[in-house]
Each structure stands twice: as C-alpha cells, then as structure tokens.
C-alpha cells in the first residue's frame, strides 16, 4: 500500500473542500460588509467567539450541502484492500487518497464523515423546529391562561422530563415498536401542530379580512397537508418527500424528548412578558387571547428562544449521536456520526483513525452552535 505524507493529507483535504471555503468566504464576507443592516445576525460579527462559532456552523452546513461534490468516495463503497489502512492511503485503482484512511470494511472515513453531516444536519434542526412548534403551541396557553390548563400541561411536560432520555429511546426506538402503529400515531399528533399553529397564527390576526385569510389558510392547508401525508403516511403523491420508518421513529422520539424543554421555557417567558404594558394595551383594545399570545408575546420572546434553539440543535445532535452509539434506529451501515463512532470504537485498541474523525466532527459542530448561542446571548443583552 502506498501512502501520502501528513502535509499532503492536510493540503488534500483543504483543496478537496474548496466549494465549502468559497461559499463561506462569500457569505461571511458579504455579511461582514453589511453587518450594520443585518440586526441581530449582523451583530454576531462584533464578537470574535461568535465569528468562530458561525464559521464552524457554516462549514458543516456547506459540507452537508456539497457532500456529493466534496467527498472523494461514496460513503458505502467498500475496498477490500483498504481495510483498516492508516490515513493517507492511496486507493490503487482510482489513485484517489483516503485522507483519514479506511474503516474495517475499507470504506473511506473522510467521505463518511462528510456524508454523515447530511443526516445530522437534516434531522437535528428539523426535529428541533418541530419541538419548538409543539412547545410554543402548548407553552403559550399554559403561560397565558395559567390555572388548570397550566397545571395539566405542566404535569404532562414534567412526566416526559422525568423520563431519563436513554430509557425513553430504548423504549421508543426499537424495531419491535415499528411493527406497531405507535410511531405513526405520535407522528400524526406532532405533525398536526405546525398546521394548527399557522392557521391560528393567521386567523388571530387577519380574521377581519376573510379574503386574505382564505388565501393564507388554503396555502397552509395544501402545503401542510402535503408534508403531513408525505411524512406520516410516507405517501407523497409527487415522490419528493419521504421518510423511512426507522427515520420517522427517530424523528418522533427526538421531538417527543425535546418539546417539554421548549414548553417550559416558553411558559416561563410568557408568564414574564404577559405582565408588560404593551400586553395590557392589547388586552384593553379587546384583542382575542390568541392574538395577544401569538402577535404580542411571542415576537418579544424571540431573543431567548433563538439562543435556546441554537443550544437545542446542538443538544439534539448529541442525542442523535447517542442513538447511533447504541445502534438504535439508524441502519448499521449509515454514515451518521453516532453510528460511525460506535463502529470505530469497537476496534479502538488496534486502530484509532476510524473513530476519531466522526467524534471530532460531532464535537466541533456542537461547539460551533454553543459558541454561536453564547455570542447571540451576549449581543442581545447589550440592548
């Protein structure tokens, strides 16, 4: 086997990732130039740690986006000759270099890390967004009405929070449970929230203007219905969106585990903001409760919620990694980071190189999000 040296590996990786560098340079350069006009996002650029965090997040975002161009090999392609070969090994037929070496099936570790980011960067933010919609839809009434609504919802949220996450996953993400209708039922409930949320959002503001409201409702219903049918029943009439049963299972479990946390934050923020004067003004104007909650309270709670969303995406990434590490839900050959860490750690005593890159990738992504959240918090406090 022929190998290239350390410098060549570094140079190779740097050149290989050129579309990523180019995109980051363009987007961060433009944002830097117009940072005064970009409100909160632009103010991140005043904070060095924020810039670092943003850079890391953009890096993984673009790496996931360009995975097919950037990665030299297919993530599942196996080379018998390259089994457990050290970093920098040259694949004899194509002459391409496996920058981080091969894993136990001779698959390229580098390409798998890059392709793994695709899975992580789709599921983690999407699941977090759903958790936010669920948490907001339940947290607003709980914090606004208080009383019985609050007692019941808080009890339910605490019920889920009292479950250790790992136990929850062991019970909810199994091949056995996919034979039952449980994941689909849960998905059916969770995915209903966004549709109801947006309908209420538009209704509470535009109910005096039926024509506009009708247009908005139709758009929400058609689009929401399409996504709903595609994801819950896996029956997309256009064949664009689809989720495998195991992916749906993971998705639902992650949303289920993280929405009570969002609920608690939204409830607390709502209780706090509901005492402000502008809320009292809206109430005096005779606005309906949902208008006050969705158009007065929610926009004013956005700062802490954005910070929490950043942290929560990171936390969801860690959860996904945990699922992969325990071999729950994802298929064994999946290139996602958790699964590759598990595969690599089995041979850790003999070969270090298959386990380290995905581990560091996961860590860097979460670190980027945490730094970003920290910078956002600091900048929004400066007001």
């Amino acid at each position, binding site marked *: 086997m022929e190998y290239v040296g350390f410098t060549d590996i570094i140079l190779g990786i740097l050149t290989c990732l050129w579309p990523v560098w180019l995109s980051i340079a363009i987007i961060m350069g433009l944002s830097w130039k117009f940072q005064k006009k970009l409100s909160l996002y632009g103010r991140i650029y005043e904070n060095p740690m924020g810039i670092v965090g943003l850079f890391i997040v953009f890096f993984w975002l673009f790496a996931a986006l360009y995975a097919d161009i950037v990665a030299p090999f297919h993530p599942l392609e196996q080379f018998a000759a390259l089994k457990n070969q050290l970093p920098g090994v040259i694949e004899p037929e194509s002459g391409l270099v496996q920058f981080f070496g091969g894993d136990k099936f001779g698959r390229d570790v580098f390409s798998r890390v890059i392709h793994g980011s695709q899975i992580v960067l789709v599921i983690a933010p999407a699941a977090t967004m759903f958790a936010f919609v669920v948490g907001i839809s339940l947290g607003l009434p709980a914090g606004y009405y208080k009383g019985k609504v609050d007692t019941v919802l808080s009890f339910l949220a605490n019920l889920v929070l009292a479950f250790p996450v790992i136990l929850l996953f062991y019970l909810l993400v199994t091949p056995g*449970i996919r034979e039952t209708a449980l994941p689909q039922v849960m998905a059916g409930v969770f995915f209903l929230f966004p549709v109801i949320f947006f309908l209420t959002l538009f209704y509470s503001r535009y109910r005096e203007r039926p024509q506009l409201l009708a247009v908005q409702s139709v758009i929400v219903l058609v689009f929401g219905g399409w996504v709903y049918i595609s994801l819950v029943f896996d029956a997309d009439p256009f064949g664009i969106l689809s989720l495998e049963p195991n992916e749906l299972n993971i998705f639902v479990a992650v949303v289920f585990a993280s929405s009570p946390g969002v609920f608690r934050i939204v409830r607390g923020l709502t209780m706090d903001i509901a005492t402000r004067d502008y809320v009292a003004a809206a109430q005096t104007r005779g606005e309906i409760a949902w208008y006050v909650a969705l158009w007065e309270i929610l926009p004013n709670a956005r700062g802490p919620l954005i910070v929490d969303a950043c942290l929560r995406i*990171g936390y969801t990434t860690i959860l996904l990694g945990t699922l992969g590490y325990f071999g729950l839900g994802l298929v064994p050959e999946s290139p996602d980071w958790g699964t590759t860490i598990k595969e690599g750690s089995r041979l850790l005593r003999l070969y270090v190189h298959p386990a380290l890159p995905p581990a560091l990738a996961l860590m860097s992504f979460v670190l980027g999000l945490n730094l970003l959240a920290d910078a956002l918090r600091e900048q929004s406090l400066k007001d």
Partner: protein
Amino acid sequence: MLRFLSVRLGTMLLTMLCLTFVVFYLVNLEPNLRKLSISQTNMRASDEMIERWLVYNGYREPFLERYGQWLGVWEKPPSRDVETGEPKPRFSFCDEASEPVFSGVIQGDLGCSTAFRTTVADRLLPALGHTGVLMFWVMLTMVPSALLIGVLAGMREGSKLDRSLSVLSITSTATPEYVSGIVFAVIFASWLGILNGSAATATRDGVTFYNFALPVMTMSIYGMGYIARMTRASMAEVMVSQYIRTARLKGLNFRTVVLKHALRNALIAPFTVIMLQFPWLLTGVVIVEVMFRYQGFGWLLVEAAGNNDIDLLLSCSIVSVLVVLLTQLISDVGYAYLNPRIRVR
C-alpha cells in the same frame, strides 16, 4: 413547608404511577412479548409455541390486572402446571408463592429477571452499589473543579482568564461522553498506556486509579462545563451587587471580598444546577458503563432493554425516575433553605 412537601410528594407518586404504567404498556407491546418468548424458549419456536409460552406464563392475562399484580394491589395467582393443575413456579430461578398473594412493588417484590435468570433485586442492588461508587468519584472530581472554574471566571468578568475559562467550559459542554471517552481512551490508553481502557476489573478487584480514572474523567467533563457556566453567571451577578461594592470601598482586599462575601451567595444557584444534573448523569452513566464495560446500573439497563427483560426494565425505570424526581425535590427544598429571600408557605 409541610403542605408544600406533601403536595410535592403526592405529585411525585402520581408521576411515578403514570410513568410505570407507560413503561408497562411499552414493554408489553405484542412485538416485545414475542421477542421475549422467542429468547426464553431458546429455539426457533412456532407461533403456536410462542403463544403457549405466553399463556402459560401469564402474559395473556388482562393488561390492567397484570399491572395491578405487578404493583401489588391485585392478588397474584400462582401459575399452575398445564396437565396436573398443581401450583408450579413460572421460573425455576425465582421463589414464587404457591397460593394467591399480594406481591408487587409495593410489597417490595420486584419480580424475576428473565435475562439473568435470577430475582431482580439480586441483580439490581449490587449494580446500584457499583454505580454509586462511580457517581461518588464523578461528583468528587466534577463539582469542586466546576465550582473553581466558575468562580475564577466570574470573579473578574470580561478578563482574559474569564474568556479562556469560558471557552473551556463551552467546549466541555459540547463534548458528550461518547466523544470524550474515545478521545481519552486514545490518548491515555492507546498512546500513553498509563490508564486502562476498561473498568471491567473494578467490580471484581476493587477500584484503582488505573482502571477507574478514564470513566470518571469522561463522565465529569460533560457535566462540568454546565455547572461552571452557571457558577460563573451567578458569581458575575454577585460581583456587581451593592454589598460587594461596599465591601471593596470599605478597603477590604479583593481576596477577602471574594472568599468571605461573594462566594456564599454565589454558590446558591449552582446548588440547584448540581442537583438537576443527576438526570443528565443518568444518561452519562449508561454510556460510560457500556463504553468501559463496568457492570453497574447503566449496563444493566441496556441489557434489560436489549432482552426485553420486563421486570428488570420496570425496576430500572422506577429507580431512574425516582432519582430524577428526588433530586428535583431536594433542589427545590434546598434552594428555599439556602436562600432566605425565597420562603415556601
């Protein structure tokens, strides 16, 4: 205070009842029962044999009745031999009564572990002991170092020391156990060879630095950053308060102000955070024990879940839910106790 405590304890009991019911429902789903039956009959059983095993062992009794029996509020009938009708225990490795008795969790009977072929209590108690040892060392490393980092960082907000310690603690919160475990194992076990990459010997030969340092380090890192961040925030808040300024203006030196005046008030908030860390540590325990092959509670939970060992899994969930709820209670009561500004009626 008494009223507050009784309401909290009542909610806790209700929560536990609901949660055990949910777990009971999930482990008794049809595919899980089939899996259990297949692994217990130890053969490629036909559908008919699976069904017979399930009926014989009482898994086909009405659901609520079985939950009541498990709980101990419903009489548990002895299982009988199919042919003779004589009472015969379901599992040879557990003593079961030969006449109907109330014997459930309330009476202290946790049931039989089908995977380990023994009683649940027999398996669970030593495992909890092992995890207790691990937690003790984790707490002993994590809490003091986290508090130290937090206090040092929050002492002078915005200083170089603060910046670098903050980055350090943010990095540690971004490093889950399965990442830090691997990185540490690579550095200390594979390259330097000074620590053991497996803690399996710790349960048998006792805890040594050689076999225990890696799991303890791995677990401490993830929680440390969070506690340090909270301590820093609370310390920074205290340091700008009026009485600290007064103390400084009085001419006290910085050291005395920090140690005597600031520290006491700054450590109230981290107390809550440390208590609320326990549920997180529970997930960490599972990962670390599986990773370093340490046969404690987390390892047991994974084994129980993997084999659908119903009674063991239920007992594991009781333990973990109890840990979560008790730490929440302690954190609330302790906070009220430590902070005179908050009084519970």
